[in-house]
């Protein structure tokens, strides 16, 4: 499987480690009202789609960047990859 790294071009999937659903980026505010329920949903309620899925991959044996990879879970076709942007990146 090849992952089209936005900066480095096609890279072997072996260079990456997989974390999971890209929704993990949207961590709830732990100090807000109803944080317990929000964290329950964040931690346990994940979609498990048959089809395109946005997921987090870490380029561990490369430039150590986090990518959001869109992968079709039924065919393993990689539909796109983008760098995770956020504080400190």
């Amino acid at each position, binding site marked *: 499987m090849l992952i089209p790294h936005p900066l480095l071009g096609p890279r*072997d999937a072996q260079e990456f480690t997989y974390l999971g659903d890209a929704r993990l980026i949207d961590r709830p505010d732990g100090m807000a009202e109803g944080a317990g329920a929000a964290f329950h949903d964040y931690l346990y309620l994940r979609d498990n789609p048959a089809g395109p899925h946005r997921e987090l991959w870490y380029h561990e044996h490369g430039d150590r960047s986090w990518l959001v990879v869109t992968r079709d879970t039924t065919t393993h076709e990689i539909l796109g990859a983008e760098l995770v942007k956020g504080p400190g990146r």
Partner: protein
Amino acid sequence: MTDLIPEPALGADAPMRREIGAVTLTERTDVGLASLALRAAASEPAPFGLILPGPGDSVVLQDKGAFWTGPGQWMIEGSENGDFAATVAAEAPGCSVTEQTDGWVVLDLVAPAEALGTLLERLVNLPPEALTPGKATRTLMHHMSVVLIRRSDSRLTVMGMRSLAGSLWHALEDTAARLA
């Protein structure tokens, strides 16, 4: 105080060197290394006059060099073996600089361009254009993280973790021997 002399990464008295067919494999002990990382909202420095390269690239200026290791991160190379990080830090004010010299084993592969290409086909899963002269990239080789720097058509530097120097040497030696 005892005057201690550091041992080469491969553990011999002198740096290792082997010729296998058209390929010459040499251990380098004259390389000083320091990583340089930008802090938030910092502007890019130009240590030793080096224009820091973009993704997948390297630059050389006299006896200093730099290659890209990640967004906002580079490795600086020099011929100095003392406190290289301090030298780099003085050239890159406001940046995070960490000494790396003793963490790595640095091996040079010299071979005709064609032989080097054939060797790379067997060692790493990268398209040839990712390793044209001047390119530098981190990847997997025999399940080991390595940095490859293509100095020229006929010269490639392989950097790996010092603790796996022996395995890296073995992988390169073995592959070269099979092609010889």
